[in-house]
């Protein structure tokens, strides 16, 4: 029996797991379920030795074991199929399995073809993994983990890119292995039908805590969804935007039957001036692609995106429509974008507050235009004052806390009257105080409309007039006003998953 007791892990200021306990029994398939960001992945990473916990212990048959690295995990017979893979892209499938199982490549080549074939994946096992499709990689990741003949097998959301038949075969293979040897299996999944159909026990996580454990036979689909959403605890409703949705205002952005290159298909969505529209859904349902289409970073494969803005110097009447193929400068002047992924998409860590604030403005100016340093420094001071940030314009932004950095980035939106603002998880990893300040900024954006994605449903409810729920690249439902609650959103996200499985 593998036990996890009172696990806790924080990344900087972000609490990923507060208190997680879990018990896996050999011969059982145990599901770990929870909403986005409830801490499942961190638990998995701790168990497989990728991440070291701040607190808590792992016990094997009562004795504490030390899993400080993947090598330790391997020594204790723990094998993991990772959602974000543990495959070496430059090596072939055969070599990847040889690396994991410590078998010679020739031996691997003898069984690999057959093993993959049984899971509906036929491909050249000598081709580098970087040339494979995501589906094939997923199957390979699973086969590789199983081939290690583990005592504890962890499957971290690897069914996401598989079809129903493959999932069926996959669990069949797991059962077969369990009949030969008592393996303890831990499955992380968003698909409730998978939990009910293939698993024996389920542990529910919410906000970094494991809240309950149930035998699957005692659960219904609705009950499971309720447990994940956590509606039993509160009434499930929260205050949202507070202001009435702007009915008569003109549209600032329209997406008409837009399909993208990856997931997004046939999405129609319009945002009015002064309106805040949210996008929600489980991870990887195409939200990020929708956002980069709306922000005009990508061109749609099909459909049309129109952004309207007031022509320069004109009043209410005259409007100009810009479409994705206008100049970058025009786009930058019209569409604002802020991401919560500061490290990759927001902050220039080693530059000053002024530079970070004006980064976009510099770009809009053109390469050789004159920029008055004294003017932008003065403007920076004004904006810092408005944002209530203690700091000097020349100070490096990395000296600020994550929350204050994000507020400076939001300051960019104050420099220019954007008609359309796209926000990608804008308060990710931000402290509660800054989060409130950022919400005020978003609400105060009266000149244009806002499209916002958040991994946190409560944030969308608080912030948005209207929330669209995405599933498999489509918008499956929209909620406004009093329909917009934690439970309706949660059910739409998960309920659709259930329906989606059934209609296949």
């Amino acid at each position, binding site marked *: 029996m593998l036990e996890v007791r009172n696990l806790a892990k924080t990344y900087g200021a972000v609490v990923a797991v507060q208190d997680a306990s879990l018990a896996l029994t050999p011969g059982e398939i145990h599901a770990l379920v929870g909403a986005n960001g409830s801490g499942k992945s961190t638990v998995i990473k701790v168990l497989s030795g990728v991440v070291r916990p701040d607190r808590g212990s792992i016990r094997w048959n009562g004795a504490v074991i030390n899993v400080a690295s*993947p090598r330790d995990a391997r020594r204790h017979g723990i094998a*993991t199929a990772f959602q974000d893979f543990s495959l*070496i892209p*430059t090596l*072939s499938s055969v070599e990847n399995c040889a690396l994991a199982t410590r078998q010679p490549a020739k031996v691997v080549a003898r069984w690999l073809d057959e093993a993959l074939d049984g899971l509906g994946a036929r491909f050249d096992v000598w*081709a580098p993994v970087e040339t494979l499709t995501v589906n094939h990689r997923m199957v390979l990741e699973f086969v590789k983990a199983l081939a290690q003949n583990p005592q504890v097998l962890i499957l971290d959301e690897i069914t996401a890119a598989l079809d129903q038949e493959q999932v069926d075969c996959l669990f069949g293979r797991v059962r077969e292995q369990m009949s030969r040897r008592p393996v303890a299996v831990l499955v992380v999944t968003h698909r409730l039908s998978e939990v009910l159909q293939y698993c024996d026990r389920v542990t529910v996580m919410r906000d970094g805590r494991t809240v309950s454990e149930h035998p699957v036979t005692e659960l219904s689909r609705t009950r499971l969804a309720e447990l994940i959403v956590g509606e039993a605890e509160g009434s499930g409703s929260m205050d949202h935007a507070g202001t009435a949705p702007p009915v008569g205002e003109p549209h600032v952005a329209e997406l008409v039957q837009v399909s993208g290159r990856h997931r997004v298909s046939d999405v129609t969505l319009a945002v009015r001036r002064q309106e805040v529209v949210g996008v929600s859904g489980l991870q990887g349902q195409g939200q990020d692609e929708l956002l980069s289409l709306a922000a005009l970073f990508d061109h749609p494969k099909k459909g049309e995106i129109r952004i309207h803005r007031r022509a320069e110097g004109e009043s209410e009447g005259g409007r100009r429509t810009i479409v994705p193929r206008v100049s970058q400068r025009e786009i930058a002047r019209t569409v604002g974008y802020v991401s919560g992924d500061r490290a990759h998409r927001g902050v220039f860590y080693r530059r000053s507050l002024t530079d970070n604030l004006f980064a976009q403005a510099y770009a809009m100016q053109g390469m050789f235009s004159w920029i008055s340093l004294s003017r932008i420094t003065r403007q920076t001071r004004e904006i810092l004052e408005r944002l209530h940030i203690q700091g000097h314009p020349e100070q490096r932004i990395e000296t600020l806390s994550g929350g204050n950095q994000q507020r400076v980035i939001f300051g960019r939106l104050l420099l220019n009257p954007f008609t359309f603002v796209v926000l990608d998880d804008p308060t990710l990893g931000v402290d509660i105080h800054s989060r409130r300040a950022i919400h005020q900024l978003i609400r105060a954006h009266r000149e244009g409309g806002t499209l916002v994605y958040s991994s946190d449903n409560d944030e969308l409810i608080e912030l948005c007039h209207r929330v669209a729920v995405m599933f498999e690249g489509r918008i499956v439902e929209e909620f406004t006003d009093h329909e917009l609650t934690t439970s309706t959103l949660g059910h739409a996200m998960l309920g659709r998953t259930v329906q989606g499985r059934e209609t296949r």
Partner: protein
Amino acid sequence: MKWRGWLSRWVPGFPGIILIVVLLTVNIILSGTMISLGSINDLVQVGMPLAVATLGQGLVIIQGGIDLSIGGIMSLANVLIVVLLPTLGFWPALLVAMATSVVAGLINGVVIVYGRVQPLVATLAMSFVASGVALSLLPQPGGSVATGVGVYMGTFLGFSTGIWVLVVLLLLWLVVKRFFGLAIYATGGQEHAAQRNAVNVNRVHLWAYTLSGLIAGLAGLAVTLEIASGDASIGASYVLPSVAAVVLGGTSLAGGSGGLVGPVMAAFALTEVSNVVFSTGVSSYYQTIVSSAVVILGLAVANIVKRRSSLLRQS
């Protein structure tokens, strides 16, 4: 299905091999004489230092780094052998030189792994240190190593001893590949994925840089036997050519792919380029320009071939 995978794994190494064949042919046509064992032996002897240096460079590049200290270590080994030869005799001098090279490589590894210094910076620093020490030991080029040359100039079964040394080194690489190979490729391919597969990536880095140090020492030996004297700045001209040879041999600078046979062939091809350019009678002022142009052309062709072969795979 299977041969395609096999092909795609070997095709990237071809440009080096093709280039050497083409160049030898061109040389035959230009010089008007048939290719002889003697001319191949000559090529091997002249190209030996670069070929050996390329082996070490290739190893380091495959595991995801770069070694700019190869030249410095070559100079140091060369100078140590020459300076110690009169007092210690050939073999003890050689032993000291090799031991020093290994230590230099190990220091590279330790600084990179535990000091978390970028390979480029760490090995560049080591190259300054090594050539600095070499220069302080032998401020003026000089000395001689007549005793060792006899061994090196000899032949075995008709081929020069150099060829046999190279064969042994390549076989050694195959052995390394058999036992550590996947770990080396995995570390270079994607370090965090390698870690998840329980590969001790720190140990891989340490071994690679240490081995590269040793191999640079051997390259220093090769250059000593070729010029038969000591020169504290001799190694510098081998650093960038060794990187070029690795790339020309189909091993990506990004790491995690390729092999060492291609790069060694490419190293000889680079030497042969100068030979060919020389025999065409191009003024020595322009030789570098012409041979560099050939290298660039070779790289472009290598890239096109590589892309073609990956298209082949996807179809």
